[in-house]
C-alpha cells in the first residue's frame, strides 16, 4: 500500500515530467526579458527609477542569492529565458520532440574550452564593468540582449546548450553556489543505468530531448553541471531519475579537484569583497576609478581587481595548502598520506569558499536590496518612466527597509557563513589527512575584512 508521502512524491514527479508548465513559465520569463530590455532601452535613463535596473539588479539578483540558489539550486536555470529560442531553433520544436535531427552545425565545443575558464573570464569581465551595468539601463538592456543573442547564436554553431554550460557568467555563479542547495537531481539506482541500452537521458527519445547540458546523469555527483532542465526525467525509460531532498551542501562532502572551479570560487569571493569596497564603501577614489571606464584610473582599478582575484587570493590559498602539507607531522605520516606530498591541495582547499562566498554575496545583497528595495515598487508601477501608476506605487519615495536590522543580519550571515565554511574546511582537511588550522585561518581573514567593509 502506498503511503501518503509516496503518492504526493509521485504526483510531484509526474507534474515535473510534463513539459507544458516549464515552457509556459519560460515563455513568461522570455516576455519579461523582452520587456526589461525595452524598458532599459527606451525608459527613463535614471537607473534607480528604471524597471530594468530596479527589477533585475535590486529585485531579481537579491532574490536569486538570498532565496532561490540556497533553496532551489539551479532552479532558475530551469526556467531561464536566455537559451530558450536557441533550444527551439536547434530542436526545430517548441514542445515535444519531432524526431528531426538537430539544426545548426552541431559542432562539439573544442576540448580546450570544455571547462569553466570561459565562464570565469566572462564573470571577471562583467565585474570590471559592474558599476556601469548596475546603474545604466541601456547597458543593462544591451547586456541582456547580448547574452540572449550569444546563447542563440552558439546553439546554431555548437551542440546542446554551449552557452549555458561554458559561457554564461550568471550560470557559473548559480552553478557554483547551487552545490549548497538541499535538492538534487540524481539517478535512483546506478545499476539500472549500467544495464540501460538506449541511454535516452543522454541521446533523447520520443519522450524528451537528450541532456542539453551534455551530462550523462549517472555521472552526476554535484549540482553545478546540471541545469535542472528536467529532460532526463522525461526520457528515462526506467523511471530511474528523481529530484530528491538531501542534506544541505552535500556536494561539498567530496572536495573538488579542478583548478577552474577553484578559481571560480576565488573570483566570486574576491568580486564580492571588491563590490562591497567600491560600491558600498566611502572611498571616492575607488568609485571614480570604477566609474571612469577606459580612463587610466579604471585601468589601474581593473589591474588591481585582476591581481586580487587571479593572483593574490589564489596565491595565498596555494601557500595555505603548502603550509598544511608542511605541518603534517613525521616522515612516516608523509609516506602514509599522499596528500602531504606533491602539489598543493589548492583545488580541494577552495571547497569551503563555496559557503563562504555565498554568505559574502548574501550579505552584500542584503544591504543593496534593503536599502534600494523601495525603487522596485515605484518602477513596477511606472516601468517605462512614462508617468504611469499601474499598481499605485509610482509615487513611493526612496526609503530604506528594515534599516536597523541590516547590520545584525549581515553579522549573522557572515559569521554563520564562516562557521559553515570552517566546518567544510575541517571535513576537507580530515579527508586529506592534513591540518585544518591554516585553511580555517585563511577563511577567517576575508570574513573579518568583509565585516569591516559592510559594517
Amino acid at each position: 500500500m502506498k503511503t501518503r508521502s509516496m503518492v504526493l512524491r509521485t504526483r510531484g514527479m509526474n507534474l515535473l515530467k510534463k513539459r507544458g508548465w516549464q515552457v509556459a513559465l519560460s515563455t513568461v520569463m522570455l516576455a519579461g526579458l523582452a520587456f526589461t530590455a525595452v524598458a532599459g532601452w527606451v525608459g527613463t535613463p535614471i537607473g534607480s527609477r528604471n524597471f530594468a535596473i530596479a527589477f533585475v539588479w535590486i529585485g531579481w539578483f537579491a532574490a536569486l542569492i538570498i532565496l532561490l540558489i540556497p533553496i532551489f539550486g539551479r532552479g532558475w536555470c530551469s526556467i531561464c529565458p536566455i537559451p530558450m529560442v536557441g533550444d527551439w531553433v536547434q530542436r526545430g520544436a517548441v514542445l515535444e520532440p519531432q524526431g528531426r535531427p538537430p539544426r545548426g552545425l552541431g559542432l562539439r565545443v573544442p576540448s580546450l574550452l570544455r571547462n569553466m575558464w570561459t565562464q570565469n573570464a566572462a564573470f571577471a569581465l562583467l565585474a570590471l564593468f559592474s558599476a556601469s551595468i548596475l546603474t545604466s539601463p541601456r547597458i543593462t538592456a544591451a547586456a541582456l540582449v547580448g547574452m540572449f543573442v550569444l546563447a542563440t547564436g552558439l546553439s546554431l554553431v555548437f551542440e546542446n546548450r554551449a552557452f549555458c554550460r561554458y559561457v554564461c557568467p550568471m550560470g557559473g555563479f548559480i552553478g557554483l553556489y547551487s552545490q549548497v542547495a538541499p535538492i538534487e537531481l540524481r539517478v535512483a539506482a546506478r545499476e539500472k543505468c549500467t544495464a540501460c541500452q538506449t541511454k535516452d537521458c543522454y541521446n533523447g527519445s520520443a519522450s524528451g530531448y537528450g541532456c542539453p547540458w551534455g551530462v550523462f546523469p549517472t555521472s552526476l555527483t554535484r549540482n553545478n553541471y546540471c541545469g535542472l532542465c528536467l529532460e532526463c526525467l522525461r526520457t528515462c525509460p526506467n523511471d530511474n531519475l528523481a529530484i530528491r531532498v538531501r542534506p544541505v551542501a552535500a556536494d561539498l562532502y567530496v572536495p573538488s579537484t579542478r583548478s577552474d572551479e577553484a578559481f571560480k570560487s576565488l573570483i566570486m569571493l574576491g568580486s564580492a569583497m571588491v563590490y562591497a569596497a567600491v560600491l558600498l564603501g566611502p572611498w571616492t577614489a575607488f568609485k571614480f576609478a570604477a566609474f571612469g571606464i577606459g580612463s587610466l584610473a579604471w585601468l589601474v582599478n581593473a589591474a588591481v581587481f585582476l591581481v586580487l582575484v587571479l593572483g593574490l587570493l589564489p596565491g595565498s590559498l596555494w601557500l595555505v595548502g603548502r603550509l598544511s602539507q608542511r605541518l603534517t607531522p613525521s616522515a612516516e605520516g608523509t609516506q602514509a598520506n599522499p596528500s602531504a606530498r606533491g602539489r598543493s591541495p589548492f583545488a580541494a582547499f577552495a571547497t569551503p569558499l563555496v559557503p563562504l562566498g555565498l554568505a559574502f554575496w548574501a550579505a552584500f545583497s542584503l544591504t543593496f536590496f534593503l536599502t534600494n528595495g523601495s525603487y522596485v515598487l515605484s518602477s513596477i508601477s511606472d516601468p517605462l518612466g512614462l508617468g504611469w501608476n499601474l499598481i499605485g506605487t509610482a509615487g513611493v519615495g526612496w526609503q530604506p527597509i528594515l534599516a536597523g536590522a541590516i547590520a545584525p543580519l549581515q553579522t549573522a550571515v557572515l559569521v554563520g557563513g564562516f562557521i559553515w565554511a570552517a566546518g567544510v574546511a575541517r571535513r576537507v582537511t580530515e579527508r586529506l589527512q592534513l591540518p585544518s588550522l591554516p585553511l580555517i585561518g585563511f577563511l577567517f581573514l576575508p570574513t573579518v575584512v568583509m565585516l569591516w567593509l559592510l559594517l
Partner: protein
Amino acid sequence: MITDRRPRFARLVSWGLITSAAAALALIPLPTVHTAPRHVTLRVEAAQFAFAPSELSVNAGDTVTLELVSTDVVHGLYVDQYDLGVEADPGQTSRLTFVADKPGSFRIRCNVACGQYHPFMIGRLTVGTPIAFWRAAGLALLALAAILLGAVRPAREAPA
C-alpha cells in the same frame, strides 16, 4: 569516519558556554570613552557622485550640524539608521542638526536621484566606536576559537 566522541554532558557545557559568550558579545554594552558633548559643524560638499569629505567622525553624544553644499545638481544627504536626511539645491547650503546618540559606523548617502551612479554616492559617518563591527569581529573570533578547540565539528561524513 568523522565521529564526535565527546560525552554528551561535555558537549552541552561547551555549547552553553559558546552561546553565553556569543550572547554577551552581541548584547552587553561595550565600554566607551566618554567625552564632554560638543557642538560640531561639518561642511560636506556634494557633487556627482561623491561627498567631500566622504568620511566624517564625531564623538558619541555630540550635537552635529551637517552643512550640505551641492556644487552641481540637487543632492541629498541621508544618514542610515538615524533616518535623517537633508537636500540641497545647487549653490545652496542646507543644514541638518542632530544629536549623535547612537554609536557606530553609518553610511551617509545621497537620497535624491542625481544621475547614473547615484546609488553608489555613499560616504561614512563614524560616531564614537564602530560598535557593530567590533561585536561582529568578536563573534567571528569566538567562532574561530570554538572551531579550533573542537567545540564545533562537521556533523556528517560523506554519503556513500
